[in-house]
Structure formats: structure tokens, C-alpha cells
């Protein structure tokens, strides 16, 4: 005869094995048997436990680590009222990366993103597209499903997650927030914490979460650091950064916790005070020596401020603590690649491969490293594997683009032409491919086509200097000096130190001045 297991224990077991759907169903069943009435004062212990477990399950289903997820929305960037100094001193602001301070490679060697920062080795929310200069640019940047920048960070991703959870519960929400007596729950510490997380993460109702947290911290006589951190999180979501800072600081006075340091640093980065954030991280490292997340935070800030050399130092420190840290390995690898040491980059990428990272991007990088480190026998097979692992059109376009580079390298321009065209067929917005295709067209003598491609490239990616410069030289040879001058000026804006642009500008100025 089968002895049935205690359903609550089973649900707990499911929860620990991360089988949330089953756990949720089981909890629902328990609650049906002994309903947990939100109104009565003395509910049974079992139903209370089941209710709490279900809130945790539902939260876990949609949980995202709050520390990492952060992307400034268009509204925060363009309608920023708190910015005071438009031109900050170099090295004190994330908004004005300036030219490389740490002696890193120039844009001629390491491509730039739209924000004027060198391309990174590891894609994070903030590295995706950077800060657009104008409203039009902000709206125009290809906001596709995977590179989308939300309108505000308060809507965007969080609303989407909230609605996604609505879809899974067609009969309506599990807890009716409007009928909840928050004051009552705030007095039950064992329920209030799970309830808070449910409201914050699952329902994404920051206002109610804030109310609950405020009541609860009052009940705890302002002595519980956890509630202060939650209050800070709520304030941060609402954009009340100074209030959030106060809460996090106060929480740190009660108890030193790594997470609190990370949240506080996030606040400072949003306030555009990278130096304060760096100091905070260092303070955190005094209490938690060698903490990987803090070290990574420092490295990221250095990277965003264009100080690649010190970023690499900190990533190396990260690796000393945790030698399987994917972000650190990838960033150091890409730095070596762009500082003319592809053979070392190859080592780092191989390490990633050994760790079980097995995707298109990695093989893509491996192929390029092999090619530039002259290990020709492995180059093309890496690319072949990258092609077979492609997950979407954009990745495919990138692989074709890199193959085009290899083809240019071995002098097979026909093949290169085909590759760049294939890159464009898969990603219509691939500005680099447009640019390279234009150069190939120019070599064939088809000036009109080259011109059209260059114009497209420069409208797709105004931050790249190459299309402007190419257009400038092209117009110069054709004899259209005015267009050449205008394009050269744009190129100078994008990359002021570019010697060839300076040369062409000098020649043109001389042309204009001579009789």
C-alpha cells in the first residue's frame, strides 16, 4: 500500500528542485482544501505555509537578479533633468567617455560602439548601444526585439515580465493586491518578506511594495537591514536615487552585505558618479577582500570610462579569485586580440571552450584569432562550426562578415564580395558590411554604387568614422571637394586623432585657400 507523502513537504521538495510549475499546482491544491482567507485573523499554520510557498514559487519563476538588470531607458537619458554640468571633467563621468585615457588601442584598431567606447568582450545591458546624442537618434536606433532600449526603465522590461506572468495565470492573479491589508502583513515578519518579493518581482507593483516595505521597516523599528535594502530597491525603481542612496547607506551601517554595496554602486552609476562608485567598491573590498562581484564592478566601470588597461588589471584580479569567470576571460581575451596579441587571445577563448561555453560567438572569435595568429588550419573549421551553431540572423551576419575579412586577407575579393553581401542579406542594418562592400565596389570602378553604400553605412552608423572617411576620399578623387570636406569633418568628429582624415582635411583646406 502506498503511503502518500505529506503534500506540503512534497511541494517544498519540488520547490528545492526548482520544479516551480508542479510546486505551484500542489500549493494551489492545498489551498483549495483549506483556503487561506486573507480576511480572517487566525488561519491554520498549514495553509499559511502553503500560501507563503506559493508566493515564493511564483516569484522564483520570474526572478531576475536585480543587481545585474539595469538599462537606462530613452526617457531617463534624453529627459534627464538632474544633469548639471553638460561638460564634465574628463575621467569623472560615464557620459563623456573621451579619448582613451589608459593608453588603450585607438578606434582604428578596436572598433567603437555608438557611445564612443571600444567594443567590449562581453555583452551586458549597458554595453549594447550606448547613449544616443539626439532624440531622433534615440528613437531611430534599431530597437529590435533583442537590442531594444526600453522607453523608460520603469516600463520596458519589467512591465513585459509582469504581463508575461499574467499570461500564465489566465484565471487572474494569485493575490489580489488591492484587497490586501498591508499593515496586517507587515506585522508578520515570516510572511511579509515573501509577500514583498512577490509584489516586487512578480506583480511588479513598486508602489504597493514600497508601502509594505515602509510599514514593515517601521514595525522592525528601523533596525532590519533587509527592509532598508528593499526600500532602496523600490526607490531606485521609482527613480528617487537620493532616497535610495540614503536607505542603502543606512542598511550598510546595520550590516555589511555585498549585495548592498552593489545596489549602492548602481545608484552612483545612475547618478553619473563613477568615481564615487569606484571608491565604494574599494571600501567594500576592505570588508570582503577578493569578492568577485565587487572586482567585476570596478573593472566594468573602468571599461566604461575607456580605461581599458586598468579594466584588464581588475579582470585579472577577478580571475585570480574565480578562474571560471566568463566575463573576465572574454574581456581579457578581446583586449589581447585588439592589442595585437591574437595568440594570447586564442588561449583565453580556448579556456572558455574548455569550460563548456559552446556558442556561435565563441567560435567566431576563435576563427578570427586563429587567422590573425597564423594558425590557418583551424581558421575555417572554426567558422564552419560557428555557422552551424548560429541561433539567429544577426549572428549569421556577423559570421559572414568575419569570413569576408578572412577572404580579404587572403586576397580573394570575389569571395569577400559574396560574404559581405550575405552578411547584408541576413542583417540589413550591418553598417560595417555596407562600408566594406563599398570599398570593393570602388575597386571595381563602380563609383555610383560605392557612393550609395557609403551613404547608407554612414546613415546607419553615424558613430563609425570609416564610411565618412571613405566617402571623403571617394569624393576627393571624383573632384567633389565640398562633399569630401563635409564627410571628412564628420569623420573627424567620430575619430579626432585619425591621421589620414587630418591629412585629407589639410589638403582640402589648402585646395580651398589656393587661387
Amino acid at each position, binding site marked *: 500500500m502506498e503511503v502518500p507523502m505529506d503534500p506540503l513537504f512534497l511541494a517544498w521538495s519540488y520547490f528545492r528542485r526548482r520544479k516551480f510549475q508542479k510546486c505551484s499546482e500542489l500549493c494551489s491544491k492545498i489551498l483549495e482544501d483549506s483556503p487561506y482567507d486573507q480576511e480572517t485573523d487566525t488561519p491554520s499554520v498549514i495553509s499559511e505555509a502553503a500560501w507563503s510557498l506559493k508566493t515564493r514559487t511564483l516569484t522564483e519563476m520570474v526572478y531576475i537578479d536585480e543587481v545585474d538588470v539595469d538599462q537606462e531607458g530613452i526617457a531617463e537619458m534624453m529627459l534627464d533633468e538632474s544633469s548639471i554640468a553638460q561638460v564634465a571633467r574628463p575621467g569623472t563621468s560615464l557620459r563623456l567617455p573621451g579619448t582613451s585615457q589608459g593608453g588603450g588601442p585607438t578606434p582604428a584598431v578596436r572598433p567603437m560602439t555608438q557611445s564612443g567606447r571600444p567594443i567590449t568582450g562581453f555583452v551586458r545591458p549597458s554595453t549594447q548601444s550606448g547613449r544616443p546624442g539626439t532624440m531622433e537618434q534615440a528613437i531611430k536606433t534599431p530597437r529590435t526585439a533583442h537590442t531594444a532600449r526600453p522607453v523608460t526603465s520603469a516600463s520596458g522590461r519589467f512591465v513585459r515580465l509582469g504581463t508575461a506572468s499574467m499570461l500564465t495565470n489566465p484565471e487572474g492573479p494569485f493575490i489580489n493586491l488591492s484587497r490586501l491589508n498591508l499593515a496586517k502583513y507587515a506585522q508578520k515578519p515570516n510572511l511579509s518578506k515573501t509577500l514583498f518579493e512577490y509584489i516586487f518581482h512578480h506583480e511588479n507593483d513598486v508602489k504597493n511594495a514600497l508601502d509594505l516595505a515602509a510599514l514593515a521597516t517601521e514595525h522592525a523599528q528601523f533596525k532590519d537591514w533587509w527592509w532598508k535594502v528593499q526600500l532602496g530597491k523600490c526607490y531606485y525603481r521609482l527613480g528617487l536615487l537620493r532616497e535610495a542612496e540614503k536607505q542603502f547607506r543606512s542598511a550598510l551601517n546595520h550590516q555589511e552585505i555585498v549585495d548592498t554595496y552593489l545596489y549602492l554602486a548602481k545608484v552612483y552609476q545612475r547618478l553619473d558618479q563613477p568615481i564615487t562608485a569606484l571608491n565604494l567598491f574599494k571600501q567594500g573590498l576592505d570588508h570582503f577582500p577578493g569578492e568577485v562581484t565587487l572586482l567585476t564592478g570596478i573593472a566594468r566601470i573602468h571599461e566604461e570610462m575607456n580605461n581599458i588597461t586598468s579594466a584588464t588589471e581588475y579582470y585579472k584580479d577577478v580571475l585570480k579569485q574565480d578562474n571560471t569567470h566568463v566575463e573576465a576571460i572574454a574581456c581579457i581575451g578581446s583586449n589581447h586580440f585588439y592589442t595585437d596579441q591574437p595568440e594570447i587571445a586564442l588561449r583565453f577563448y580556448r579556456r572558455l571552450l574548455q569550460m563548456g561555453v559552446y556558442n556561435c560567438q565563441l567560435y567566431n572569435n576563435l576563427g578570427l584569432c586563429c587567422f590573425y595568429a597564423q594558425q590557418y588550419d583551424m581558421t575555417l573549421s572554426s567558422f564552419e562550426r560557428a555557422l552551424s551553431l548560429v541561433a539567429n540572423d544577426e549572428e549569421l551576419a556577423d559570421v559572414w562578415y568575419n*569570413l569576408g575579412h578572412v577572404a580579404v586577407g587572403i586576397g580573394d575579393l570575389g569571395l569577400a564580395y*559574396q560574404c559581405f553581401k*550575405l552578411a*547584408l542579406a541576413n542583417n540589413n542594418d550591418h553598417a560595417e558590411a555596407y562600408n566594406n562592400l563599398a570599398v570593393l565596389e570602388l575597386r571595381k570602378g563602380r563609383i*555610383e554604387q560605392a557612393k550609395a553604400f557609403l551613404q547608407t553605412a554612414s546613415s546607419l552608423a553615424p558613430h563609425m568614422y570609416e564610411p565618412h572617411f571613405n566617402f571623403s576620399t571617394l569624393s576627393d578623387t571624383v573632384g567633389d571637394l565640398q562633399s569630401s570636406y563635409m564627410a571628412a569633418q564628420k569623420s573627424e568628429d567620430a575619430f579626432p586623432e585619425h591621421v589620414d582624415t587630418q591629412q585629407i582635411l589639410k589638403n582640402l583646406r589648402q585646395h580651398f*585657400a589656393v587661387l
Partner: protein
Amino acid sequence: MTTATAEMKENTEANSKWLDAHYDPVANLYTFSPCITLADLQGDGENKLVVGDLGTGVCNMKLKVYRGTSLMSENTLLDLPTGLVSFLMDQHEPRTPAIAVASGPFIYIYKNLRPYFKFTLPTLDVNPLEQEVWSQAKEDMIDLMSLKEMLEGIRDKAEIPLSVRSLKFLMLDPQEMEAFVNVHKQQPIRRQTVITCVGTLKKNMADEDAVSCLVIGTESMDVYILDPEAFTILCKMSLPSVPTLMDVTGQFDVEFRITVACRNGNIYILRRDSPRPKYCIELTSHPVGLVRVGKNVVVGCAQETLQGYTQKGKKLWTAYLPAPVTAMGLMDHHTRGFQAVLVGLANCEVHMYREKNLVSIIKTPDVVTSICFGRYGREDGTLIMTTKGGGLMVKILKRTAVFEDRDTAPGPPLAQSIRLNVPKKTKLYVDQTMRERENAVAMHRAFQMDLSRLRLAVARAYVKALESSLTPMSASLTEPLKMNAVVQGLGPSFKLTLNIQNTAACRPVMNLAVSFLYDETLYSMKNAFFKIPLLVPGLNYPIDTFVECLTDKGISDIIKVFVLREGKSAPLLTAHINMPVSEGLALT
């Protein structure tokens, strides 16, 4: 830190020479060097600053007089001033100079800051053919169209150019012509030139307070010298080009030289008793400033150079400037016997050159547009500058200031001693090259095999893309087209802009249509199929259309755009638009 201290050192160096007497960044003074002068207008021994203010270029032209730091008087000018000089007209006591302002074809003479006399340039000959045509028009013997045709014919061929009236008439729209002719046909035709530059020339004595003649350069390529009292033309000389800058020295009755920089890039030197220029300096670029120092001429050129010439047109030296020249002026300190050229540059600096040596640099807060050095108030060494933003700056030369004759231009650039950061070749690299050397044949074979396989794969993918016209540019020779699409908007309605361009050399493309393929449950479009107009080669045709997003679930999809040719089922080209997620919710 190092740059900061260097900057401070430079500042203190400049401070050791000049006192900042006055700086008003909002003096609302827009002028250039020929329109600014210093003169003792009231005979009280105190020099005033007289400025012909250009205003906005359309209105607010003023003759302004400053005394000390304040504006003393203001007279409205009718037209843009092109030059302003102060000169002594007669021997009467007290010896107060008159002000001559050149604007348009007139010279206005002010005495005691009151209008005194207006001199008008002599009119020029009118083309007899033009005269004839207009007299016919006066008697209504000619209709408007043939009048226009005749005038156009004269404009294209005749040696004597048309009058302003005829030129204005040719610019008019046909319906306005009749009214214009009716208004103007009764008046006689006149052709008038305008003054481009003005200078003064002592009559018969070299003294500081001697009577001077006016020297005028005109658009009709002539130079006139006027009598100071009667304002009659004493002498007329003609030039091969239009004068723009002028410098005069000598005495009219003895011997004089007029140095004129012209619009054709040449500098001509005129002398007494020769109606044609005596010497010519051919520059390699347009002159933008002209200053005479002693017997030499210093010219600032558009090529960012400063060149020195002798009186006879022999080149002495060239100095290269860091930025384009915006203003030039002579610094002539009589009591010290110090002469130098002040050059205002577009990088907010004023350089002081003595011969070809740079002796001092003054940093200014704005770009300087006019420079005047001389006695202001009772102070001998005063430098007055106005800026592009309408500011007025007055600096006084310190008594202790010493200018070294040595060139202060820096020596070899610092960059020479910086070592390049060339990464060292790692041991790993050496090992890999060893491997390459040992297994060269095998590696080559593997690479070649991979390469042929890759070529095949690429060719297959390429053919597939071509057959289904997946690329955003068409490969066909008859319709070489290119398209890219941009999405704008936050949702639920988006604007799609298709940029279509015909990349052929000279052939237009017609009979094209655009159609869209999309998931109808997610998006709706008003017209998913429309024709596009004839495409002229080389132009970009932006075509807008609107898409409505129907879902509020935060899902997005791809919209495909096809460019089709009439009568063909296969598309010419295809573009995929990755739609952004709709942020707003559709109104229901």
C-alpha cells in the same frame, strides 16, 4: 598638472605685458578692422574710439563713439559702412578731425559728430543699347518679353555691364514685371558703383596734423583721390581688378604709394604720376589682411600664412600660422619706436609678429574681428579689439613690457621623444611560428581544403540569396537598386521609412511597386502595396508608411519588404525589418 602649470606660466607671461583695462563681452559691437579708428574729435587732447558698427548686417548700422569705457554718442547710418577714417580737412583752429564713413556709393563726412557733407561717386557710362531699350519701353513700343530677351542678350555679350535696374528686372517673376516697368520707366538709367575701401593721404606736409586727402577704391576697379576741402576728384587711377584692402603712404604733392590688395589675389602698388599700377605682387592665395610696417608690406593670406614683401614686390619671408587670419593691425608705438604686426586668429589668439618672428601671443576669450592700436584717452599704447560675439576689449601696454626679438615659436615637437608602445612578441607566438614552420605543408593543405569547401558553401548561400532576392540591393544590371529601412516610433504605431536609391550611372527605373509581408494578427498596415515613382539615378527616395501594432503582449516580429517589378513575380530585392517591441498600448 603639467599642462595646467604651463598654461598659468603662459598667462602670467601675457599678463606681464598687457593690462586688462576693459572687457565688455556684450558691447554689441560688430565690426572689422577698416571700420575702427582712434581720433581726438573734440580737440581736448583725449582720443576717442570711433567705430562703424555693422549691426546685424541688415539694420542697426551705427556710427558709435566711445570715450573711456562708455558710449559717448551714436549716429544711425543708412547703409553698411565699408570703411571709416578720420582726417583733418582744413587749417582752422581748433584742429578737430572729421570722420569719413564710406558706404554704398557715398562718403558721409561728419564734423563734430554732425553730418557735414555727402560725396557721391561719379556715375558710370550706361550701355547705349540698354539706354535704347529702356527708352523704347518708356514709349510702350516694346512688350515685356522682348524687353527681357534684349536685356538678357546685352547681359551675356556687351562689354559695359547692365545697370542695377535692368538686373533687378531680370530677376523678377513675369507677373511682377509690368508694375516694375511702369514705376521705373520714367526715370533715366544710372549706373553707379560702390566703395570697397578707403584711406587717407597727406596733402603736402608730413606732419602728424597735416591736411589729408581721401583715397577711395571702388567696385569699378578705380582708385580716386579727393581734395580735402572741395571734395573734387584730384586724381583717378585704374586697376586690373577690384581693390579690397588699401594702404597709403607719402604726400600727394610730393610722392606717394598706394598699396592695394585686389580680389584677384594680386597686390598692386600705385605711384604718383602713373595712372596704371607700377608693381604687382602675385600671391598664391587670397589676401585677407594688409599692413605696412616701415617700408615693407605684410600680407595675411587665406592659406594661413603671413608673408612679408618689399615696396617693390620682392618676397622677404613667410610665416605659417596655426589658424586662419580674422583681423590684422599695425602696432606702432611712437615713443618707444616699436613696430609690429598684430594678427587675430580664428583659434582665439592674437599673435604679434616683428618681421617674421613671433614675439608674443595674447589669448582672447573670443575670436577677434578687428584690431586697432594707438592712443586712446591719454594712454599711448592701447590695444582695442572687438570680437565675433560683439565684445569690446581694451588692453594697455605696460610700461615695463619688453619684447624679445627672439622667435618664441617652440622647437622640435615633444612627440619625437615618446616611445611607441609596440607589444612584444610573446613566447607563445614564437612557439606557434615554430609549429607553423614544422607543419607548413599539412597546414597549407588543410587550409586549402577548408577554403574550397568554404567557397562552395558561400557560393551556395549566395545563389540562394540571389535567387530569392534576399539581399537589400538588387544585382540585376537593368535595375541596380538599393534599399534600407528605418523604423521610428515607440508604438503602437510605427513609421517605416524605406530609403530606395537607384545606383545606376544614368538610367532611371520605372514601374516599380513595394509590398509588405507581415503577420496580420500582430500588425496592420493601411496599404500594404503601393507603387513607387520613377527613380532618378543617384537620388535617395525616402518612402514613408505607417504600421499599427495590434498586440499588447510585448511581442515583436519581422516585417518583410519586397520591391517588385511590374509583370514579374520574383521580387527585385527584399529587406527584413526587425520591428521593435511596442511600448505603448493600442487604444481599444
